[in-house]
């Protein structure tokens, strides 16, 4: 899956889930400020990314994602981890 493929998938997830105009979703777009998403929306995003990558996204690293470009990189790294067979992160208790 190329970086462009990942970007296309993320644009589809964001536009379909949150009725965003795909034209407004740029790599440099900030998720929470410019795209006006919130932390509950982020959970929806990472659940769908789990389907895309085939593994449970790392919550600690997910918290650090702020832009679409960082989200693309996050997916790249998750796909690489899946290919290496890295263990999935433990399911967390709420904090």
């Amino acid at each position, binding site marked *: 899956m190329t970086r462009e493929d990942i970007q296309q998938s993320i644009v589809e997830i964001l536009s379909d889930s949150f009725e965003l105009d795909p034209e407004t979703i740029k790599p440099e777009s900030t998720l*929470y400020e410019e795209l006006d998403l919130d*932390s*509950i929306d*982020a*959970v*929806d995003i*990472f*659940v769908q990314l*789990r389907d895309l990558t085939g593994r*449970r*996204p790392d*919550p*600690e690293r*997910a*918290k650090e994602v702020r832009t679409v470009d960082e989200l693309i990189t996050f997916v790249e790294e998750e796909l690489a981890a899946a290919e290496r067979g890295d263990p999935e992160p433990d*399911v*967390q*208790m*709420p*904090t």
Partner: protein
Amino acid sequence: MLFLDDVVDVSWTRIVTATTFDADFLLAKDGRVSPLVVIELFAQSAAALMAHRSAQTDAPDVSGYLLGARKLDVTVDAFAVGDAVRTEAEEKWGAGALAQFACKCFVGDAVVAEGAINVAAGQLPADGESMLD
């Protein structure tokens, strides 16, 4: 009000619960129960799963909150008093105080409702702070 009669099966990320809508069921009216009861069944099943985890880890019990339902699909107009339903809730992902559960409700082997719920648990952050942290 607890709607769950029994926990049929439970693991770290998935739970199956059972409920029978008796005549004195809180939401029963004229022999029928609104199908929207499934949202509460989903939420209570998710809460039971979290309580199970707390018991396994000796973690303190925490309050939980239903934030909303996503992509809810209900195929029945109403449940009838006497119907026995089975509810499945599986955690798909969570971070910080937030988690999403994929849920299904069955009558017999037929899926009569499915969707996702977003929940929050634990100490909620102050206004303006991310619930993922």
